[in-house]
């Protein structure tokens, strides 16, 4: 399978996971979106040398994933796909920031390595939270939630269409790539030049399709506002979920829980 094909398949799999029926899936999408937002803000707001304080936050994606019956291996694979970005972003930190700020045993650790690790942990936390959100809520649910929460209509609509047509676009790209491969006999199919033309071709086709889709929408009375039928009900369970987790995040952010636990345990021993 080509990489495009695999990507599409995995995207579809995320969608299938979202259609499960578990206690997490049954939560109101708005509750999950708000909770995830609080989570993201809390994680991102940590200082650049913080590592320990962030660790308790792993609880959220782990609990959600296991309650929502998202296969662990699937999530890890998805994380690995995006990981190179995070690895590259912090790549130069250890070289630039060489000041030793911590000692592990007898080994001095520079600020650069710590901030690099901090970036990677941040990446793991935020990406897994986002994956879990989609995997337990579905794209439609997330779109509905952000619209109901007052985000501009355009955002929700864009997101909705992006998700719907990424499959169509992906398949089109895949067919073109396949057609080229079939006639390039193991070589690179005349290289970058043709590649550029294919991209242009894809853009033009997309443009045409966009026009046809818009016609189809107009045909059915589209007036610039996509109305989604399904109703959302916020129950006390949803409120409890949101408040409970948010309180935990604030707590984790304000107090360095692992440090406190460590001090407590050390206090008990000595």
């Amino acid at each position: 399978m080509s990489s495009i094909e695999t990507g599409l398949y995995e995207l579809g799999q995320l969608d299938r996971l979202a259609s499960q029926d578990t206690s997490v899936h049954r939560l109101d999408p708005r509750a999950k979106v708000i909770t995830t937002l609080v989570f993201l803000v809390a994680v991102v707001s940590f200082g650049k040398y913080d590592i320990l304080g962030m660790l308790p936050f792993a609880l959220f994606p782990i609990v959600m994933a296991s309650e929502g019956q998202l296969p662990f291996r699937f999530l890890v694979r998805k994380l690995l796909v995006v990981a190179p970005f995070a690895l590259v972003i912090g790549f130069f930190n250890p070289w630039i920031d060489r000041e030793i700020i911590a000692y592990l045993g007898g080994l001095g650790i520079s600020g650069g390595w710590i901030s690099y690790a901090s970036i990677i942990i941040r990446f793991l936390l935020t990406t897994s939270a986002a994956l879990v959100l989609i995997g337990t809520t579905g794209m439609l649910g997330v779109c509905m939630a952000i619209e109901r929460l007052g985000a501009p209509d355009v955002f929700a609509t864009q997101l909705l269409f992006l998700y719907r047509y990424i499959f169509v676009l992906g398949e089109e790209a895949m067919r073109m790539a396949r057609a080229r491969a079939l006639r390039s006999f193991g070589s690179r199919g005349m290289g970058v030049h043709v590649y550029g033309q294919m991209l242009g071709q894809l853009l033009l086709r997309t443009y045409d399709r966009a026009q046809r889709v818009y016609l189809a929408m107009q045909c059915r009375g589209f007036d610039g506002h996509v109305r989604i039928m399904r109703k959302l009900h916020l129950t006390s369970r949803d409120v409890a979920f949101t408040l409970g987790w948010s309180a935990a995040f604030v707590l984790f952010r304000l107090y360095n829980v692992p440090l406190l636990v460590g001090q407590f345990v050390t206090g008990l021993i000595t």
Partner: protein
Amino acid sequence: MSHHSIAVTNLAFSYPDGTAALNGVTFEITHGESVAIVGANGAGKSTLLMHLNGFLSPTSGSVRIGDIPVTKSTLPGIRKTVGMVFQDPDDQLFMPTVFEDVAFGPMNLGLPAEEVDTRVAEALTRVGALKLKDRPPYRLSGGEKRAVAIATVLAMWPNVLVMDEPSSNLDPRARRRLIELLGTFEHTKIIATHDLDLALDLCDRTIIMNDGVVTADGPTSEIFSDDALLDASGLERPLSMQGCPVCGSA
């Protein structure tokens, strides 16, 4: 005159690049008629269909749906009356689930939620796709997509159904099912198609287009027996009207 009739008068249209796609097309379709529009590739069929719904405005001539001329100000009403099924269902099914998609039109009509629910269920039942209602459209088969695309239009209760190549890309059984389904509709139907057997099964009347003009307009069985006319229009007799390839008998 009811809303179900269509009158096209001297319709001419040129694309902005100067290509003349329609050069004076005139016909009238009355209530409940089922009409096939056939013609070779590039004969102007799709351009004609685009005018029936006001997507394109004529360079000259006019289109009337019932008593109402198709103009900018009458478009919302026209688009409610004329339901259009596109050739590629992927263009037509743009919502995340089948249910949302079929509900899209009725919601835009401002119908109350219960009414939308009943209309969606009814339209999906009509095309035999009710069990698909929670599926995302991109994961349906070609035949299922087509059925749902038709349901999205039916849910708006149009008086006229306009279809562009409804049987393209369907396997034989899905095609047969589609023909049976379309046969049960009492709407005024206009079907642009290369599938002449479908035209023969569904439409009593056929309009042949060639180079942007109507070259013939009459009963389907007569038109499809006129070999000289078919040949001049870049067409062939429908398979069911050709001799048997095995035994040679007609």
